[in-house]
């Protein structure tokens, strides 16, 4: 198998000064990752869990303390320059655009940096401008862009050279709902058409649900989970919640099969029922509720990714 990302026993230590003593901190410990070309992987974990350190090792910025990494079949540190032509990276917190130049000029410079042929660069640029709806602020200097606009420009900049692998570190942080939506749609289309491999770190449940078909949870530098989101919720027993607004005050709905009554408001006008996706469906629960009272409005609350991660952490703490 030709893995696009493959790490074996990847470990990274930092030495930090603690008063007069020097301590070693393991940011990443014995990490074994394998990602297939074309996959979309969510790399999830709390702040300080080792996500950024892993990304820096995969892209050739940091040297591993021990173990090995191969990205696009290359050794990241030794073959950094060749690798740079095959990967695109977006760091949510740092910009690769020139802050005092119009967005258009940044694209022109990046095309030169990656040595793209003029016609190819132009057609790709036009495609990205259209899909990420950048046209309206193409001539605006980067420092005057809103966060959402800048983020779209950043993503376009990272993908101008049509990389095989795109790594996004917190791409939707701070974006409004509409900007998030646009960005996700773009990434989905890009992946479908170009077969681009995606790896993203995020705290956003929506990113994971919409974009990723595989989740990796990292805890204190170790891999704590590898599988699908549904499997993740199942593993930790995270439940979905159906919230129903009823037409009249109703006694607590405690008898609905495969659900747990979480609470009621306004004499039972609004009630919350937790259920397991494995045992039943939202439709079945709704049907059962309708037998007791008329439903005028409803919402389904998904398990929060932060909560799921917390549960995973708690479980791994009890094991060890």
């Amino acid at each position, binding site marked *: 198998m030709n893995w696009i990302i493959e790490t074996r026993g990847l470990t990274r230590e930092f030495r930090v000064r603690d008063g007069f003593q020097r301590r070693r901190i393991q940011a990443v410990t014995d990490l074994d990752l394998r990602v297939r070309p074309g996959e979309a992987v969510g790399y999830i974990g709390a702040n300080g869990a080792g996500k950024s350190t892993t990304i820096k090792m995969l892209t050739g910025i940091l040297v591993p303390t021990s173990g090995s990494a191969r990205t696009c079949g290359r050794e990241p540190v030794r073959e950094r320059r060749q690798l740079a032509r095959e990967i695109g990276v977006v760091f949510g917190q740092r910009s690769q655009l020139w802050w005092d130049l119009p967005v258009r000029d940044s694209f022109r*410079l990046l095309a030169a940096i990656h040595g793209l042929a003029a016609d190819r660069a132009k057609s790709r640029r036009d495609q990205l401008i259209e899909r990420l709806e950048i046209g309206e602020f193409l001539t605006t200097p980067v420092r005057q862009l809103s966060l959402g606009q800048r983020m779209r420009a950043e993503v376009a900049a990272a993908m101008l050279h049509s990389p095989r692998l795109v790594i996004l570190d917190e791409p939707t942080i701070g974006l409004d709902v509409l900007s998030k939506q646009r960005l996700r749609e773009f990434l989905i289309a890009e992946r479908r058409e170009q077969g681009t491999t995606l790896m993203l770190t995020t705290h956003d449940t929506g990113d994971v649900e919409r974009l990723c078909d595989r989740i990796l949870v990292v805890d204190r530098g170790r891999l704590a989970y590898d599988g699908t989101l549904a499997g993740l919720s199942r593993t930790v027993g995270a439940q979905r919640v159906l919230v129903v607004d009823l037409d009249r005050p109703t006694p607590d709905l405690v008898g609905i099969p495969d659900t747990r009554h979480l609470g009621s408001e306004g004499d039972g006008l609004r009630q919350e029922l937790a259920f397991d996706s494995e045992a039943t469906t939202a439709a079945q629960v709704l049907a059962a509720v309708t037998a007791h009272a008329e439903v005028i409005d409803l919402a389904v609350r998904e398990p929060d990714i932060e909560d799921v991660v917390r549960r995973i952490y708690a479980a791994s703490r009890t094991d060890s």
Partner: protein
Amino acid sequence: MAEATTGSRGWRTDLAAYRAVLGSRIEAQRSYRVSFAVDLASSLLVGVVELAEVLVLYRTVDRIGGLDLAQILLVFGLADFCFSLADLSFGHCDRMPTYVRAGTLDVLYLRPQPLLLQLVTSDISLRRLARAAVGLIALVAGLALSDVPWSIGAVLLIGIALVSGYVTFAASFVSAAGLQFFVINGAEMTNAYVYGGRYAASQPASVWGRPLKVIFGFFFPMAFTAYLPVVTLLDLPGSDFLPQWLGWCAPVAALWSVLFAALCWRAGVRHYQGGGG
């Protein structure tokens, strides 16, 4: 896809990339005309004040370290002109700590060019042209007023001194950048030899004590950028540790500076990959 971006284009592609980035920096500075004019003026003022310092000193004495006013103008001009050109093209390297903190350096790692070349070509400070102009005027005045025994050898020596001086100062900016990886707040320390070095270079090295001669004569070879070539050019007596013929050795000093800079830079980058985060 990948085949469009890799291939046999090598250094030509890289050259085009550096040119594009540098061109955009020049464009950006020119587009803010008022700010650029103010920058030029303030840079000019600093240059003039430093030149005035030398002139004022010579109102009270005729000679310092065996050099008269015309000769010291030549030393000052040579040193300042070379330093200003190095500052123009390499000066932004000493913003390394800012680049590390802001993540600019990480962004450079993600581009397919060598790190140092990217850093050097990432900016250019055109305002230093004003400073270089002051140096050039002092240099021309020094050449006109001193008794230069003009010959092919003399012209060659001046040419060698200019190139070596530029390289030596440029190297000092790079070694400073390399060392700043180790001490993120190390700008104070590296400024001491980058800007202290520039100051030392524009003085007659003959007045230095021995420790200073060892440090700025050889380790950071500032005496080779101006004082020694001038002593050789004008056939003046050398001094302790710094005989007259050393003026021809400016390229050796430049080479040593480049070597030292390369070592500092490599060590710095290794350390960043080893210790940053």
